[in-house]
């Protein structure tokens, strides 16, 4: 069996613990079952007068910091239902569409980047919803619809067939900058959504492939509906 990252790279593990001491003194590493989990409280509001802390457990992937960690709220504060963006089966929080997280965090799932850019907004949003306020950010539909909506926001196309074909072109490395932009502007990509398209080209293949799968299931649902 492959040795876990914190054994092959003890310096990286020490660095992680140093980051926690410096930035998150109430979060601590816990090593068990060949995994590193980060356990403790995370402050959304940190004042004595106005404190709002979540009990969390972040499970780091074996290729930390390359893949997306999983995270749980451990005090039973966030209800385990899909409308609160919790995976009902595992109880893990769904902090974002994986492709979108990857793009926003530029593939860096180091603990600071993950906590600040992925988890913090999610928890702030949850606290506002608890207060009866609307979710302060965009909110994705569940499942494949949510993935499509990301591509709509990101490259301006909401047709699953077009998005799917575009992603396949990226996967097969056929995409060229003089192609017409997927948003339908009629302009070449390099004069239109170039930055976003470049971000998609930096995605790992498995994420692109999973997006293609989501587009296919949307097409299947459309076909089923029209029959």
């Amino acid at each position, binding site marked *: 069996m492959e040795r876990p990252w914190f054994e092959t790279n003890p310096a990286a593990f020490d660095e992680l613990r140093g980051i926690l001491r410096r930035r998150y003194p109430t979060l601590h590493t816990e090593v068990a079952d060949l995994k590193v989990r980060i356990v403790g409280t995370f402050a959304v509001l940190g*004042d004595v007068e106005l404190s*709002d802390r979540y009990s969390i457990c972040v499970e780091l992937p074996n290729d930390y910091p390359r893949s997306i960690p999983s995270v749980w709220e*451990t005090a039973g504060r966030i209800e385990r239902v899909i409308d609160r963006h919790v995976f009902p089966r595992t109880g893990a929080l*769904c902090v974002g569409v994986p492709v*979108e*997280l990857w793009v926003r965090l530029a593939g860096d799932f180091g603990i600071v980047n993950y906590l600040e850019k992925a988890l913090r907004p999610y928890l702030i949003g949850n606290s506002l919803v608890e207060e009866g306020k609307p979710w302060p*950010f965009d*909110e994705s539909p569940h*499942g*494949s619809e949510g993935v499509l909506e990301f591509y709509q926001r990101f490259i301006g196309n909401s047709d699953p067939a077009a998005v799917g074909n575009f992603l396949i072109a990226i996967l097969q490395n056929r995409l060229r900058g003089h192609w017409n932009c997927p948003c339908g502007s009629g302009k070449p990509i390099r004069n239109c959504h170039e930055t976003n398209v470049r971000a998609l080209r930096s995605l790992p293949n498995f994420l692109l492939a999973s997006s293609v799968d989501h587009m296919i299931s949307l097409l299947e649902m459309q076909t089923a509906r029209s029959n």
Partner: protein
Amino acid sequence: MSDNDYLKDLLKSQRMEEGCDQLVALDEERDKVDALLREAFPNSDPDFTHGGSRAKGTMIREDYDLDEVCYFDNDDTGPGETLEEIYNNVAEMLEDEYIVVRKRSALRLKSKKGKDLYVDIVPGRYIDDNSTDVFLHQNEGDKERLKTNLETHISYVRDSGCTDVIQLGKLWRTRNDILIRTFPLELLIIEVLSGDNSGTLQERFERVLTAFVDEIDDIAIEDPANPTGNDLSFALTDKLRNRLRTVAEDTLDTAGEYGWEHVFGKVEKKATVLPRVAALTAAAASVGAAAPPWSDEA
């Protein structure tokens, strides 16, 4: 400011003054339960009184609840023949007004909407006419009943000379999400400091954390109200001891590296405290755009 002065200020900021909103809310709930009890058991005259941190003087703002004991006379069968019946009858009676979470011996009250009210009701029965010892029903564990004594517990903690370190320990427990209950934590702290309780607040707290790092496996705790009879091992599992050790080690390292203010955060009061929603909205604005939450299951 020295680290020790900082820790003293921190405790001051955690103090709950009589008349503060939280205590008033607790007292209102307490009086409501009191009235419900009198109505449901008109022929009983239970002692209904503060237990827990309110009585011990160890309440803190960030982690408080109200333990109210409800002890019936030894020969009073109004609320039930057996301890289990008493426990269940009190629970069922409260369920008309509250969501009742059945804990080991206590009943935790939530509003019907699910909001935690931070109130625990502990039903029990005096063991005889002359003693202040009581039997409590136990939902979990191998013994169905537990003999204990509230007055002994309260005075053991209140008069330990350690209530300041205990308050700090509770804050440390809560901030770091260590799942140890208050009573075993109090016993651990008192046990460590029973050897040497001299020095400043900082020195004494650091002594406790150092003992957690070096000898947590060897520290034994016993119930002062029933030293040989009540097994507290369930309250201090190996997993929990490990967690106490690692968090204590991290905390001491962090305090050594950056000072205690870094561990617990600034305490000076802001001139104006934003309303909660405004503070959260400002926090949302400061993180900028966020990835919308999602789920892979439709």
